[in-house]
């Protein structure tokens, strides 16, 4: 009895999933979480683009039934609604159907993501790269300042269905550029050197002007009394001889009678 009800449930589930099963097989989940490149990459996030690392050697293409033609695609969802749209349609719709509603684009062939690929350069995908893009499938610039979630998925071109996918990335917040007019160009605080030079030079200038005043005053004072004091000012040493008439005459007179 117990096992029968289980059986019934299984049958009903199978019946319910039948139309889906006709379109696609089950999607295998990769463990790789899509991530923005490291902080040493200057343009990892701009206002309309971001740069993702590539999941090289994360998809097991052999077990996915890919011979050599599988493709790796990326979906960039700009809102929760777009995420849900992808999740609801990934099993029911072909990729070409989904591209009419979502930002989905091709990011490389199976060989570029295989383990044995030999390219040792930086492996990145720049989302929002193509400025000339007009459709959903050509990786055009994203809306400025938007929040984006991405996931990689593998498409088998024979059936045109999703065969494997990664989880959604965490939120990637694009930059909202600041208006340059808001930049504060004030330097904040005067430098010590400026204070020192200004203070000292002002003081010295004031002192010099004061000295000039003193100089003029002192020369005027010494020049003015000069006229009055001129006899006194004469150097007493400069008088060579002073005739004392009476003394000389008295001497002469005293000598004269003899």
């Amino acid at each position, binding site marked *: 009895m117990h096992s029968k009800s289980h059986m019934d449930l299984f049958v009903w589930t199978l019946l319910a999933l039948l139309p889906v099963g006709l379109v696609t097989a089950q999607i295998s989940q990769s463990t790789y979480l899509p991530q923005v*490149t490291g902080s*040493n*990459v*200057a*343009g*990892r996030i*701009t*206002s*309309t*683009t971001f*740069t993702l690392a590539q999941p090289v050697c994360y998809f097991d293409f052999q077990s996915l039934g890919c011979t050599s033609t599988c493709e790796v695609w990326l979906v960039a969802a700009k809102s929760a609604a777009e995420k849900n749209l992808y999740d609801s349609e990934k099993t029911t719709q072909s990729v070409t159907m989904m591209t009419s509603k979502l930002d989905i684009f091709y990011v490389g062939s199976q060989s570029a993501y295989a383990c044995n690929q030999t390219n040792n350069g*930086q492996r*990145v995908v*720049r989302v*929002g*790269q*193509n*400025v000339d893009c007009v459709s959903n499938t050509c990786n*055009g*610039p994203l809306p*400025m300042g938007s929040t984006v979630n991405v996931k990689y998925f593998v498409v088998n071109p024979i059936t045109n269905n999703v065969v494997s996918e990664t989880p959604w990335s965490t939120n990637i917040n694009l*930059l909202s*550029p*600041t*208006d*340059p*007019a808001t*930049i*504060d*160009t004030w*330097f*904040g605080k*005067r*430098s010590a*050197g*400026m204070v020192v*030079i*200004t203070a*000292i*030079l*002002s003081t*010295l*200038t004031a*002192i*010099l*002007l004061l*000295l*000039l005043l*003193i*100089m003029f005053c*002192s*020369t005027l004072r*010494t*020049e003015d009394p*000069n006229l009055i004091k001129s006899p006194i000012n004469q150097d007493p040493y400069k008088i060579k001889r002073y005739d004392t008439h009476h003394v000389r005459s008295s001497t002469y007179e005293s000598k004269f009678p003899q």
Partner: protein
Amino acid sequence: MPGKGDPAVRCFQIALILGNVVIACSGIALSAECIFFLSDQNGYYVLLYATGRDTIFAAAWIGLFTGFAFFCTSILGIYSIMKSKRKLLLAYILLMLFIWCFEVASSISAITQRDWFVPNLFLQQMLQIYQAPLPTYIPSTQDQIYIINGITNSWNNVMTTYQCCGVNGPQDWISYNSTFRAYNSDSQFPWPRQCCSQAGDGTIVDVNACIIGIPNYVYTQGCFDFIAGPLNRHAWGVAWFGFAILCWTFFVIAGAMFFYTQLEA
């Protein structure tokens, strides 16, 4: 005052003459330094002119002339002190005071303007003016044409010459709106091509790697040090060398004033 032959007077005269010789030498040196600054080897004048903070160049011009004036006047001073001529000495003192005031102005404005050279000053200007379209009507906008062309060329020159990008780094170009951004998509030109590393022959090593911003393909260093560095050094020289000369000249002028008061009318 004792007579001319007095050894004390002789010593004082010699001291004053030596002081003037030093002023003459340093005056010429100040002139030379200001000429070097004014020659503006890197073409940064326009960067300051556009911000209205170009008084540093005015300070250097004043310094250039006062340096030479110090040189000439100190020779007059030496002559008047040797001959002990009162009228000449008075002329010397007044001239020196006159030049002193100008040199004070030069030194103070140089050190005051130096404070303005902060990264944001150049950042705002770069974002607003770099690659701005030229105004179409002439001649009322000659000044703007000079500023736009000058700033665009200066920045292109600095970034390629010193292998730097923006004021603080390539992030400046993506974290702010700018005139450059208004005319160039973030996707195609996150920063100007001048930020891209160049090979020996001047070609860009890898444009795509540069756009992504991978180290060694884009210059990650900011240009602030290469712009403010020379400006700051020169302004420092004009201000502090001027200040040193002024301190020395203060004592010489004061000595000359004292000598003047002691001379016989």
